[in-house]
Every structure is written in structure tokens, then in C-alpha cells.
């Protein structure tokens, strides 16, 4: 085995581990209850959770750059409602699909500016955004669901080659983001800024511009996730999914993105999102109450973080 391959495998440790865990989980639950592996269930696992995987890609960028975003759940809720309102008010479907991307990028660019230029820590800026977005959403919609969506709008219900479109989006966006992070100077500067901001500055990389771009891209990706979320059912809930931001952050961190910045890939976060979806589904098939799902997620994120710290201390 060549040295380069060893390094590549070494740096993909978390991803390989995740693949193994996912396969083991499917095998274990499948043996316990074969209906778990039915096409119907597999489809619902992927289709119902692809938007989380997509959003986790953007979150990974944010965490690699050394920041965090706890407002993404609320943002997805707001963007989904915007999309739904546009289409039910007679705007063309393509406008309803694209507007969330643009609005998401714009909102998060503002957040990025607060962080980069006004030195508001990302946790504070995004906590405040969480409050503004979720409060604003309920005030604006009064909690009413949006229904009467036109048939051609249901993007998440489309299929291509008999594979549901959310799965295509999940795979396509992961590959696209993976490519962006590996092969563009922007992608590399995200790693640089997260790894050592001082050295990044000495290399002529602008911390501020990089952070603003990262948040804008994260917002646009959140827009894609919002469209998938909005179009998967016949109605759009006008409240933000409770705790969604935590699921997304957990997916990134469990996927191998280091909480201290500078390390990780987007492939890991997608795998971790799949793992969570599978765990959530398997609880039902193992006759465990779904109310324990969040506790399981909490344990997973805590274990991953502790392992990450232990590994860092070992390798220095």
C-alpha cells in the first residue's frame, strides 16, 4: 500500500468507522425485524431525512471554519414557509424553489458579517438569530399550516431512475461540496482559517471574507434543505422542527468534523446523518419508544466529542 493511500485512509478514519457502524446497524436490526430492510422503510429513512444530511454539509463548513450555527433549524423553517407562500400566492414554481437559496444566503451573510466584522461570537449571533427567526415565523404565520400546494411543486416526491430526488440531492450536494472543499482555494482557506487563523493571515488569507462566504454558502445550502423539507409532504408546517439544529450539528460532529475547527470532511456528516435516520427508524423496529431518540443523540455527540479531545491530546 502506498504511503499516500495510508494517509488518505488515516484521515478518513471516522468515515470508514461510520460506514461500518451503519452496515452493522442495518444488519442487526434487519435480523431482529426483517421489515426494517423493506424497500418501503429504507425509502422513508432516506427521503424523510435527506434534508438533514444536506443541511449538515453547510454546518460542516461552518464548524471547519471554527464557528458554530444554532439557528439553522429555524432558518430552514422560515425558508420553507417563504417557499410555500410564494407558490400558493401564484409565483412560478421555480421562483419558489430558488428563493429560499437566495434568502438563506442573504440572511446568513448578515450573520457572517456580525461574526467576522463586529466580533460577535458565532454562538451568540446565531442564538439571537434562532430567537428572531423562530419567533418571527410564528408571529407571522400564527402557526397556520400552508396547504393547497400545486402538484408540480413537490420536488422531494420526484423520482429519477426510480430513486427519490432527495437521495439524489443528498449525494449530489455531498459530492459537490466535497469537491469545493478539496479543489478550490476557497475550500482550502476554510480549513486554514479553522486550523490556525494567525497563520492564515500570514499566508494572505482573509479571515473575515472567508467566514462571511462560509455562512452565505451555509445559508444557500440551508435553502436547498428547506425546499426538500417543504416539498416532502402535502402541507408545510409553519413551526420550526424542535431541536433540528442539534441534529444537524450532531451529524457534522459525529461525522468527524472537529469541534475545534480545521478538520473534517463533508462525507462524514452525510454518513452520520444517515446513521441518525437509521437509529431513529430502528428504535421503532426494536420496540423502543421514539422519545429516547434525543437521549441517544446526546450520548453519541458527547462520546464523539470526548473521543475527539482524547485523540487530540494523544497526537498533540
Amino acid at each position, binding site marked *: 500500500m502506498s504511503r499516500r493511500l495510508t494517509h488518505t485512509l488515516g484521515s478518513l478514519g471516522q468515515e470508514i468507522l461510520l460506514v461500518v457502524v451503519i452496515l452493522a446497524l442495518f444488519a442487526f436490526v434487519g435480523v431482529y425485524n426483517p421489515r426494517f430492510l423493506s424497500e418501503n422503510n429504507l425509502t422513508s429513512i432516506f427521503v424523510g431525512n435527506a434534508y438533514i444530511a444536506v443541511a449538515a454539509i453547510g454546518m460542516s463548513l461552518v464548524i471547519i471554519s471554527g464557528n*458554530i450555527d*444554532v439557528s439553522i433549524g429555524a432558518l430552514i423553517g422560515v425558508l420553507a414557509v417563504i417557499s410555500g407562500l410564494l407558490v400558493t400566492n401564484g409565483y412560478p414554481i421555480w421562483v419558489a424553489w430558488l428563493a429560499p437559496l437566495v434568502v438563506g444566503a442573504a440572511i446568513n451573510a448578515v450573520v457572517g458579517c*456580525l461574526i467576522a466584522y*463586529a*466580533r*460577535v*461570537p458565532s*454562538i*451568540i*449571533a446565531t*442564538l*439571537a*438569530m*434562532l*430567537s*428572531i*427567526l*423562530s*419567533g*418571527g415565523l*410564528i*408571529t407571522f404565520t400564527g402557526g397556520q399550516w400552508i396547504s393547497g400546494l400545486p402538484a408540480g411543486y413537490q420536488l422531494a416526491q420526484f423520482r429519477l431512475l426510480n430513486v427519490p430526488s432527495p437521495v439524489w440531492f443528498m449525494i449530489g450536494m455531498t459530492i459537490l461540496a466535497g469537491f469545493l472543499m478539496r479543489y478550490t482555494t476557497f475550500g482550502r482557506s476554510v480549513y486554514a482559517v479553522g486550523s490556525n487563523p494567525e497563520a492564515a493571515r500570514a499566508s494572505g488569507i482573509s479571515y473575515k471574507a472567508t467566514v462571511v462566504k462560509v455562512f452565505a454558502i451555509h445559508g444557500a445550502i440551508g435553502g436547498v434543505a428547506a425546499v426538500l423539507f417543504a416539498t416532502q409532504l402535502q402541507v408545510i408546517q409553519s413551526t420550526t422542527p*424542535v*431541536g433540528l439544529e*442539534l441534529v444537524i*450539528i*450532531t451529524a457534522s*460532529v459525529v461525522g468527524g468534523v472537529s*469541534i*475545534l475547527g480545521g478538520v473534517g470532511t463533508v462525507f462524514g456528516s452525510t454518513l452520520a446523518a444517515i446513521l441518525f435516520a437509521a437509529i431513529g427508524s430502528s428504535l421503532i423496529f426494536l420496540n423502543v*419508544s421514539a*422519545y*429516547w*431518540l*434525543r*437521549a*441517544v*443523540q*446526546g*450520548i453519541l*455527540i*458527547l462520546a464523539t*466529542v*470526548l473521543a475527539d*479531545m*482524547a485523540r487530540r*491530546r494523544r497526537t498533540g
Partner: protein
Amino acid sequence: MTAMTRILIRHEFILGILFVIVLFAMASQNDRFLTTANLLNQARLMTEVGLIAIPMTFVIVTGGIDLSVGSILGLCAILLGVFWQNLGLPLPAAIGLSLAAGTAAGFANGLIVTRFRVPPLIATLATLALYRGLAEGISQARSVRGYPDWFAVLGRGDFLGIPTQLWLFALVAAVGIFVLRFTTFGRTTYAIGNNEAAAEFSGLPVVRTKLLIYTASGFISALAAIVFVSRVSTTRSDMGSGIELEVITAVVLGGTSIFGGRGMVIGTLIGLCLMQILQNGLSLSGVRGDGTTVVIGAVLIVAVLISNLLSRFSSD
């Protein structure tokens, strides 16, 4: 008076003036606002957030953060109900055990932060998920009602014409002011926030102090849970979700630097009152409850911006 406190006093002075202006603005808007009954009722509603804000001031002064307070509140509320109704313990014993559980949860936070050196933001984000998950799992979405009448005195009764919990809050606040302002423990708290390494090199008990502060944060969150349950005489697993945002906003609004090292409990109290009358005034003038969270988010960002600006003026 030190140069540092001079600046803080200035911040508090500005805040105090702001408070008076808002008070008059609200009073002129609505004649139901400036009545003893309304103000006492507002104070009652403010108590849970207020209680948690006292140890949170300590946490933020050390340069840390505790996002899990809302989840600890929820977990302890659920445990109170479970101990009392499902396990059939006498209510005082259930209260004691619930307080112990909250203390243990805070201690666990402290251990993860000090022993495993996980950044507080990530550590408490993980336990936020974990504790809320435990609350959901244990309660299975069932609520507990029918608490005895004597228990309601704490949350809904009066003592000497003042809401009962306000006495408790006054006691905790007084202890907080005293400890942070006058004791070696308070000095150590500031020293950690300003330069943790120098504090360690001066032989100050850095680890023990941080551990105690996070533990106190857990204990007071449990105390807030008891008050909360008594006030609404029911327990639900989603109690206190999002309360961390209000708490942090009050603390930061009160002049405590989110980067640590600066802040006073008095400031937190003013910040708290300002937030509460803002909310109350808005809802009296017809803004719905969720609309006020938008205002809180906006106020948080403005507060941090102002505090950043002030610290730039006073930096050497």
C-alpha cells in the same frame, strides 16, 4: 473604585437610564403597566430566568457558557413529577432528589469542561441534547398534574405581600452579588476569565472553582424547575426549552463580557428587569408572545455590539 469597575458602572449607568426610559415609555402607552399588581406579577414571571442568570453570570465571567440550563430545568421538572407520582415519594423528598439530580447534571458539565477539557460551548451543547433527551425519554410525553395546594405557595403564593419566589430570588441574587464582589472565590472567577494560565500559576484553585460554578448552575436550574412547576402546577418535558437564550441575553445585556473577565451580578439584574418590562410592555400593546422573542434576539445582538464597542474604548 478600580478603573475596571468605573467602566462597568458606566455600562450599568447607561443601562439604568435605558431602563427608566423604557419604563416611562411603557407606562405612557398603557395605564395597566405601572401598577403594583402588574409589576409584582412580572417579577414573579421573571424569577426562573433570573435565578439561572445568577450562576450564568459566574459562568460567563470565567469565559465559559452553559447552554444546558434549560434542559436541566426540564429534566428536573420531569424527575420531580416522576419521583412524586410514579415512585410515590413524599413531595419534599421528591424536591430534594430533583435538586440533587440537577446538581449532579451541573457537576457532570463541570467535569467534562475541566477534566476532559472540552470547550464549554460544545460540552453544554452536547448535554443540552442529552438532558432534554433524558427528560423526553423518562416522561414519554406524559405530563404530571395535581400537586398539593401547599406546594403552589412557592410559585403562586405571596409572603408579606410579595410573591414567594421573589424572596428566594432575592436571596440567591444577594449571595451571588456578595460572592462575586467580595470573596476570594469571586476574585478567582475574574482571574480565570481574564487569564486562566496566570491564575493557575498564582496557585488559585482554577479547576475547583470552575467545577463549583458549573455545579451551582445545575443546582440553581433545578431550583428554577421547582419554582416553575409550582407556578404552573404541571410538569412537561419541554419545560424551559430556549430559556438559556433569555438567560444569556440578560447576562450579556447586563454588561458581562461574553469573552469573560468582566461583569457584575447587579448588571445582570438590571438587564433582566429591562428584558422583562420590554416583553411585558410589548405584550400589553398587543404583540403576541412569540413576537417578543424576536425582540430578545435583537436586543442580545445589540447588547454584544455595545459591549464590544465599550471594551474597545477601554482596552489598553
